[in-house]
């Protein structure tokens, strides 16, 4: 009996120590390490607390169960214990090891329920932002403010991530977690997000806020956050949404309220304040409040479809020139810049029957998508006309011009 105890203690201390060290290390690390980030909201801290609590419960149970097993494996091997005992069936024991886990579970479930209830309470928000998922970008709408824009993967990441790009991605700043237009929100305010989607299901996730919600076409989900520290917070789309699911990151810039108001005003007037230009830091916590710099080069792209009224006639050259840009931005991901596509998944547009055929069919396909090809309704009539004209007059194709009003008629 003595030796059994000795073994047990030694073993469980050993295993326990090892696990404790790992766990303790995990605990101190934050984002970018190997544990869940503590985050920058009250909710995210609670969630992290629950995570650590259930983790420790598992560690303790693990030490007990694995400790006993290891002990038994060592002590009760045949060379050491040639005669097996013959005991079995004990209702008492069975009841004990049913009830104890049950109690442990209750003690975990109760606080979890509390946090959950808090997370689901989206009432009394200070402002609302509509978040719409597209294949593969996000659109943000500041409700009641007439400000809205797309947010897509930053261009340098986008180039580096192409197969065979030859770029060393470790040299790209914030590879895959940088966008052209980050979402800007004020700190200290309860911001409500209305999450929905334009095509397939996406999920909007920012780990530092402990916020993740699916964006479901035809439905709107509500979530909220109240960020305490200014900084840049990065997230990703967390629901498989097709080819470029891995390439639609989220960047949220939390700024002091005054700065936010200024940014919003500028945005409305079509000028840009540097707040929108993401500060290139990874850690959220130490990001200093941003200094205001000169306006960025690019003017804001308000969702084109909403803003623009279709102009009447455009020349073929105009359309082709404009279309090239639209194609590079929207279509080249699949059909490639040279139009060759990536058969068999993505057909070549060179000599394609659809491109060479009646315009109406192509307009319909671009507007509504087909199978793997997403719909492009969100583009303006002009853009669609331009891109179609471009495909019809490039790479040796020659099948005429499509005007914006034809697209408008087809909507």
């Amino acid at each position: 009996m003595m030796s059994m105890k000795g073994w047990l203690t030694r073993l469980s201390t050993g295993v326990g120590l090892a696990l404790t060290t790992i766990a303790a290390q995990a605990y101190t690390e934050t984002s970018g390490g190997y544990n869940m980030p503590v985050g920058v909201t009250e909710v995210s801290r609670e969630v992290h607390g629950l995570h650590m609590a259930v983790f420790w419960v598992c560690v303790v149970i693990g030490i007990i169960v694995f400790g006993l097993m290891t002990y038994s494996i060592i002590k009760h091997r045949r060379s050491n214990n040639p005669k097996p005992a013959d005991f079995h069936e004990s209702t008492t024991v069975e009841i004990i090891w049913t009830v104890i886990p049950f109690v442990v579970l209750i003690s975990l479930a109760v606080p979890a329920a509390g946090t959950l209830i808090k997370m689901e309470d989206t009432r009394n928000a200070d402002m609302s932002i509509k978040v719409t998922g597209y294949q593969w970008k996000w659109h943000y709408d500041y409700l009641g403010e007439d400000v809205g824009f797309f947010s897509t993967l930053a261009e340098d990441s986008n180039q580096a991530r192409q197969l065979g790009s030859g770029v060393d991605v470790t040299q790209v700043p914030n590879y895959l977690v940088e966008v052209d237009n980050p979402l800007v929100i004020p700190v200290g305010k309860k911001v409500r997000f209305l999450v929905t989607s334009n095509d397939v299901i996406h999920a909007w996730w920012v780990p530092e806020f402990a916020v993740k919600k699916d964006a479901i076409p035809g439905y709107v989900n509500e979530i909220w956050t109240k960020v305490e520290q200014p900084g840049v917070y990065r997230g990703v789309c967390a629901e498989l949404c097709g080819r470029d699911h891995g390439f639609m990151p989220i960047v949220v810039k939390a700024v002091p309220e005054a700065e936010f108001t200024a940014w919003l005003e500028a945005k409305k007037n079509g000028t840009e304040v540097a707040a929108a230009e993401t500060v290139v830091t990874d850690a959220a916590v130490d990001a200093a409040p941003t200094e205001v710099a000169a306006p960025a080069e690019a003017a804001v792209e308000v969702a084109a479809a909403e803003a623009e009224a279709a102009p009447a006639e455009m020349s073929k050259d105009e359309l082709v020139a404009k279309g090239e840009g639209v194609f590079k931005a929207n279509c080249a991901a699949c059909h490639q810049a040279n139009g060759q596509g990536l058969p068999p998944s993505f057909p070549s547009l060179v000599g394609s029957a659809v491109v060479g055929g009646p315009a109406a069919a192509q307009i319909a396909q671009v507007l509504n998508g087909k199978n793997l090809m997403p719909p492009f309704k969100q583009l303006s009539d002009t853009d669609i006309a331009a891109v179609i004209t471009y495909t019809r007059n490039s790479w040796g194709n020659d099948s005429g011009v499509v005007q914006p009003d034809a697209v408008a008629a087809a909507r």
Partner: protein
Amino acid sequence: MAHAHDAHAHHDDHHHGPDKGIMRWIKTTNHKDLGTLYLFFAFTMFFIGGLMSLVIRAELFHPGLQFVQPEFFNQMTTMHALVMIFGGVMPGFVGLANWMVPMMIGCSDLALPRVNNWGFWILPFAFAMLIGTLFMDGGAPAGGWTMYPPLVLQTGNAFPFLIFAVHLMGISSITGAINVVVTILNMRAPGMTLLKMPLFVWTWLITAYLLIAVMPVLAGAVTMLLTDKYFGTSFFTAAGGGDPVMFQHIFWFFGHPEVYIMILPAFGIVSTIIPTFARKSLFGYDSMVYASASIAFLSFIVWAHHMFTVGMPLAGELFFMFATMLIAVPTGVKVFNWVATMWKGSMTFETPMLFSIAFVFLFTIGGFSGLMLAMTPVDFQYHDTYFVVAHFHYVLVPGAVFSIIAAVYYWIPKWTGRMYNEFWGKVHFWLSAVFINLTFFPQHFAGLAGMQRRVPDYAVQFTDFNVISTIGAFGFFVAQFIFIFNMLSSCFGWFGRKQGLPDRVWEGAHGLEWTVASPAPYHTFEDPPQFSDSEGTAIHDEAVAKA
């Protein structure tokens, strides 16, 4: 009882030897033949699914795209899962049931032998169809094995082939399951009451029940996908009054019991092997049975824990959290029982035992992470990250797959009459155990640190975890070749392996299967055996004593 067969009108079917050549396998109604076919099929699928996982792991070795286009990557993820689950684990378990259930309960064959043949032969065709989609316009399905609309509706020509392949697999599973249930309920040797059945039989009974209950639901769900795409129905579009999330509910109503379909037979295997090598009967037979039944019951009311982030009403989220956490209780009963069975036993560590012990350790780790996932608010952080990937690979690979491997080591001497090579078995075990942890343990960290699943590329801070994981995956895959050769050598007598094992290959083993010759003759128990008390006592003392 045995005297009766004199009066019986003999028809030569009974002593019909197998046909020769390929026709033997095509026409066979023999449970052992079909078991062998199932196992070889599963083996092939594990290999194909394993190759696909290597494509995944190779691409993820470093950030940036090196080998495949994102679209192809998604196809690999989707196909890997479908092939492993429906082609590997499930047929693997059905193969074991085919071989062992009749021999364990003392009957000559499954209840419906021709249906059994049908259920098997559907599978190679269904998978040829499914894997063939890789070569179609638009490529294979790439919407994840969960097939969520609207994404899955973007699949190209492969789409109807996916749906019909799932239908065919469903037919196969349902017929197989009906067969097992009927066999167990109707064909037990005289004297074998339900509570004297070996645990593997019990867990399979419950598994088969789950299969019959949920495979039709999956069939319904994919049928709705089909009509939504081709016949203008609106099940999953809001504009017509449907809901994409409705698919997820129906799918997971199938999907969650499905994961227990993949683990309950494993519980049965481990509950058979541990007592054998501990030379001590199972600590709590009844509680093992009740725990399995509770798990099966609970599995029907927890499905939405896969969908915590879809925006369910609060009450739903709370209910599914509580119900899910409850499953830890009966599963805990099982784990504790295994430990108590080992306690004060007289253990030896042959390869099947090693794999079983690793099962208990590593499955429990997977169960712990499952429990963490069950906590709704925290799952918001875990969901769709590599933490989930780590969770389910722990329960599936060192869980379900290890149990299949253990079972094959344990029974192959009975099947072939030739012992496997113990040395290489142990080498295989240690390599597998080390590499599998190398593969999947770092994925917990990657997930917690923020790496989402189903992506071909990732931010650079996750590189280290992925490097280790990829090395582990390749190591694990290569290690399986040891297993393959070891098993084939027993099958075909390579390396001069001789037959001539005793009936009871393992001294501590109990059950009717150990009362027939090794290798088991083509037909066993054409006349029902008397279920001897001593075999029964070893499996379940009390029940026999009471009876």
